[in-house]
């Protein structure tokens, strides 16, 4: 079905443009480096980065292969994300439902939310040591706030008519929460998960600054210590690609689970 006139973002697929932008960026990158306008130390060309990627896939860098780096990072972000879904969504729903929960939880949440993870990283190290726990807690905290706040907003966005209708059909309070409020809040909950996942990848490098053996952030960190700029760029591209793919997966989930989003 065609978008209606004036619908924001209407006018068909944006995929072609996205591909064109990507191609143009690569071309510019290649042109600038191939022409020799910048030193390879500052910006190595796409060819060098690709060579380096293949080398790290086979031989590794900093004591771990590419697969090991990716797996380490993916499992950290994934675990923190799952923990956040299991805790932030209930907390957000509770805040949306209850004046008491909102009153109690709002100050701590709004206080820590804007603080950059790098600022509280040292404290986390003092509290939780330099092991996996600290890394996961730092990523988890970054994901938690946007997820909880979106779940809260989702609960508040459920039309009162739907809630009233359910009560008038004999629903109990618990049934209203389960059958109406959670379903109705789903679009915002999913938006929160998507934003949270993005924050997770944003925080990854900071989390892996602390004594990580493997991980994409750790790899970048080591490479920058030795001025191996092609590994730095390769790591950035890999993180960006994985983050982009996971965002696409979340968007797919949104389309499948809430096809009615924005249509009512």
């Amino acid at each position, binding site marked *: 079905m065609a978008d209606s006139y004036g619908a924001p973002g209407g006018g068909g697929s944006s995929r072609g443009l996205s591909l064109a932008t990507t191609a143009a960026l690569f071309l510019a990158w290649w042109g600038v480096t191939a022409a020799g306008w910048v030193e390879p130390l500052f910006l190595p060309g796409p060819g060098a980065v690709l060579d380096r990627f293949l080398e790290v896939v086979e031989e590794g860098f900093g004591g771990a292969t590419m697969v090991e780096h990716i797996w380490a990072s993916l499992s950290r972000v994934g675990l923190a994300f799952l923990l956040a879904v299991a805790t932030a969504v209930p907390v957000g729903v509770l805040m949306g439902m209850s004046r008491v929960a909102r009153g109690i939880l709002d100050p701590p949440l709004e206080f820590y939310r804007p603080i950059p993870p790098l600022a509280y990283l040292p404290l986390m190290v003092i509290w939780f040591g330099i092991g996996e726990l600290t890394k996961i807690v730092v990523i988890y905290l970054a994901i938690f706030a946007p997820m909880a706040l979106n779940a809260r907003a989702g609960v508040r966005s459920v039309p009162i008519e739907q809630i009233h209708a359910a009560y*008038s*059909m004999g629903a109990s309070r618990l049934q209203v929460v389960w059958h109406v409020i959670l379903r109705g809040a789903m679009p915002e909950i999913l938006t929160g998960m998507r934003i949270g996942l993005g924050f997770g990848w944003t925080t990854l490098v900071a989390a892996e600054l602390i004594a990580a053996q493997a991980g994409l952030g750790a790899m970048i960190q080591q490479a920058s210590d030795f001025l191996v700029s092609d590994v730095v760029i390769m790591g950035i591209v890999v993180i960006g690609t994985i983050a982009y793919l996971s965002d696409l997966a979340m968007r797919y989930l949104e389309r499948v689970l809430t096809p009615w989003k924005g249509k009512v």
Partner: protein
Amino acid sequence: MTFPGRRPGEDVTALSDVDLTLASGDFVVVVGESGCGKTTLLNLMAGFSRPTSGRLLLNGEEIVGPGADRGVVFQRNALMPWLDVLANVELGLKLQGVSATERRAAAVRNLASVGLQDFHHHPVYQLSGGMQQRVGMARALTSDPEMLLMDEPLGALDALTRETSQELILDLWQASGKTVFFITHSVEEALFMATRLLVMSPRPGRLAASYDVDFSRRFLAERDARAVKSDAEFIALRERVLEHIRSGHVRDATDVGLRGGQDG
């Protein structure tokens, strides 16, 4: 019924001195200008709010909250967009724990009675406004309430759909024999639908007059809505009620007819 204001002295008295008894099987219509307190009255009857003074009884029992004995049809936003048409209509019985086959049968029957037998698995957000309201009516009927409360159910529809929907509601009323409490700001609609027409005057909302009318019964017997609505008696009464609302004056209180029967 008084709503608290933000500051002392800003309280809104939305309803005052409302003394109303509904007879079982009646089609009671409340007409009045926007903001005069119609929804406030319906919300009290539905149990969505409690009166600041006075009492509401249903069959001698005080109304303390919403319940499946009073089905509500809203103006908009009240269907669950994550459920298809059939699941929306079944929802009430599902929440009440009725078996799947039984509730399916009731939902199918009521969808047929509103002419939506071919739309069981359509997403509700793709239906026209008039069809959505019909789903809302089928849903309210499926819980088999004692009375139907309708708050401007046709207020958002175009004129043609509105007229056919009026006829449908009268058919449903006749077939089900239920007591209907119907709100509108259209005097013509009120006269056409009602067996008992209540005129509400604003600030604070009071029942200013009550008319016993029989145009709905005339329509059900003769099935010619245009003839009823262009009848000289209909037009004369319409002008009288309109004049009444415009002048805003409260008539002699004895004009508010009270009849025995089911309390509401």
